[in-house]
């Protein structure tokens, strides 16, 4: 009926279809954090002593740190002693092949649309699946090894190539970098490790799929990607979690290293459980992602589509050390209902002729708050550094908020920094125009939003772009009638 208020139309919340729980025996640490727990995790993983000590140092550092409060997000204090820091499906550590993986787990990933049987996988995507604290399967390993590429879980990498891990772990995000990075360094459990040797172009997309399953458990994964000179790799991560009433913590660290003329493209489609319409439950997504363009003319490109989580606190950044290196950040962040996102990037120009580009699209609906926070810093030696930032916000309804907080610091007079920002509302006229052509309101919103995000979605690999488009539509369901 034309006169019915928009909020009453019942298409709501077909939304989160990944909210199921897998019943599986888990091997869990007792809740809480102490030196003993750190040692327990390290022992579970059979780690060398240097790593145990590295973790303990991080833990001791963390004890002296305080929770950051500068982000525009509100939530009750997290009780870090009430979280379980290690939870792994039983049936032993690290299956040797897919045949050894618990069928229950395989079924879970099938349900999530992430088939782990290689023959069933979309051609050209290798997958590492991380379930709570451990990696359960990595596909296409043998094929990748022919090119000298290492793609495995972090636990396995510690055993297989300890020198590489030791050399690069924490070299981009030091253990004491920030509160959550320190916490992660102390208790990280699994995550993916990627090494692309000199001159190798990775023949397929690499992908990690993160799943939080167990209750009251944090996920602290650690990802490390190293691209040697001239290497090229595209990496994707996807994430989901069951619907639970309590908030769960996800505090990951991702480090990327690009040497001379290497290229790393890192794409994220983040769909952690966002909580219900009233803001109950959902994941706290407090993540540190940073890439170092160490080599000349190296390039790191971050693309993120953030639709999930109750709170997102995340600033994938680039340190542009190498002369002529390039950093790019493309982001779509959607917040609906009571979700909060404070996300953006940091582009640190150190080398000469470094360039960066930031395209951020924030979409806010319901009572949600969406903040873009970005830093562009140009150092004294970064002659002719260039940055272009474009920051667009789209509002749906009149109870949500969009905020843009750009920080610009330049110590070099030859630098050129440009910042553009727009805020718009999905107009009643746009909606009516689409509806007059026969589109339902939710389809009209999805169409308009996809148009708004097109520049970012175009940077995703094909299959994921399609997935992301659907996700945007689903995330905004119920935002208009």
């Amino acid at each position, binding site marked *: 009926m034309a*006169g019915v208020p928009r909020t009453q139309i019942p298409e709501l919340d077909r939304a989160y279809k990944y909210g199921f729980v897998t019943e599986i025996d888990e091997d869990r640490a007792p809740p809480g954090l102490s030196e003993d727990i750190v040692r327990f995790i390290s022992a579970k993983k059979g780690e060398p002593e240097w790593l145990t000590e590295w973790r303990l140092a991080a833990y001791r550092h963390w004890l002296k740190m305080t929770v950051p409060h500068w982000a525009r997000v509100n939530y009750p204090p997290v009780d870090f002693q009430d979280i379980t820091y290690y939870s792994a499906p039983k049936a032993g550590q690290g299956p040797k092949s897919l045949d050894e993986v618990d069928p229950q787990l395989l079924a879970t990933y099938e349900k999530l649309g992430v088939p782990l049987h290689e023959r069933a996988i979309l051609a050209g995507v290798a997958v590492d699946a991380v379930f709570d604290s451990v990696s359960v399967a990595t596909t296409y390993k043998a094929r990748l090894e022919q090119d000298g590429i290492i793609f495995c879980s972090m636990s396995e990498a510690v055993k297989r190539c300890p020198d590489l891990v030791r050399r690069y772990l924490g070299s981009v995000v030091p253990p004491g970098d920030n509160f959550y990075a320190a916490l992660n360094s102390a208790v990280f459990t699994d995550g993916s490790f990627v090494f692309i040797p000199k001159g190798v172009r990775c023949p397929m997309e690499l992908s990690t799929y993160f799943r939080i399953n167990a209750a009251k458990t944090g996920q602290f994964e650690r990802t490390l990607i190293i691209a040697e000179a001239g290497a090229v790799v595209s990496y994707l991560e996807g994430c989901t979690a069951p619907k639970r009433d309590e908030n769960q913590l996800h505090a990951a660290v991702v480090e990327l290293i690009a040497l001379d003329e290497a290229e790393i493209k890192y794409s994220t489609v983040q769909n952690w459980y966002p909580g219900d319409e009233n803001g109950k439950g959902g994941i706290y997504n407090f993540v540190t992602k940073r890439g170092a363009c160490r080599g000349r003319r190296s390039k790191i490109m971050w693309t993120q589509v953030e639709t999930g989580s109750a709170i997102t606190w995340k600033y994938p950044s680039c340190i542009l050390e190498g002369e002529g290196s390039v950093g790019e950040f493309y982001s779509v962040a959607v917040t609906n209902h009571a979700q909060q996102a404070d996300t953006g990037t940091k582009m640190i120009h150190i080398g000469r002729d470094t360039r960066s580009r930031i395209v951020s699209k924030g979409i806010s609906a319901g009572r949600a708050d969406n903040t873009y926070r970005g830093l562009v810093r140009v150092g004294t030696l970064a002659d002719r550094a260039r940055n272009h930032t474009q920051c667009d916000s789209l509002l749906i309804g009149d109870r949500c908020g969009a905020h843009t907080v750009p920080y610009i610091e330049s110590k070099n007079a030859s630098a050129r920094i440009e910042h553009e920002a727009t805020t718009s509302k999905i107009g009643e006229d746009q909606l009516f*125009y689409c509806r007059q052509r026969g589109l339902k309101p939710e389809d009209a919103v999805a169409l308009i939003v996809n148009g708004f995000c097109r520049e970012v979605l175009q940077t995703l690999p094909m299959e994921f772009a399609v997935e992301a488009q659907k996700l945007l539509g689903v995330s905004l369901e119920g935002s208009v009638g």
Partner: protein
Amino acid sequence: MALLQIEGLKVAVAGKEILRGIDLELVPGQVHAIMGPNGSGKSTLAYAIAGREGYEVTGGRALLDGTDLLELEPEERARAGLFLAFQYPVEIAGVGGVTFLKTAYNALRKERGESELDAMQFLKLVRAKATALGVGDDMLKRAVNSGFSGGEKKRFEILQMALLEPRVAVLDETDSGLDIDALKVVAGGVNALRSPTRSMLVITHYQRLLDYIVPDVIHVMAAGRIVRSGGKELALELESTGYAAHAGAPA
């Protein structure tokens, strides 16, 4: 039976009564024109029939082939076969013309229980229709109505109409902002869509458009009422006498 039947339609905008009881009856195949001065309620009639928010129906009925449009959501009215060519077509940034057309077209096919067309099939269809209206590939690739000239916007409206094949089309000031060449192209497109099973309601301020789209019936609207109806010769009479004689005239 009338394809579009409007009885005693009263509409208020922001609490102010704009339409004070409109009666119209379009039998299949007919083209009616509504003329009248600015502010007489012509566009309000178009929006009210299409179900735009803020146009509050305070009385009367509007039936499309017997279905009461006023009971339906805007998209349901569209799916029932109602098309409105906008006076000011709306820009949608980043949404390609073909994507937009395909989404709308497939929504209608789905409604009718027909299978959706894939990208290739659809492109072939849309190109055939577009060529006739002088809409090139370049325009189809651009975002909907973004950076279009006045003439391009109107041609894109008529292209949508050609594609969606409505049963009743309401053209709201389709001639506004068009030079004579663009007007001829648009009118040609509209005339090509005249059919014994389709009715059209052409809203215009100027008689000029009716030289190219010749209506069966002309109505003159003033102060929210239809004050006179007649054949196409009425347009010529208005051309010489103007609306002044009708403004504020009692029904």
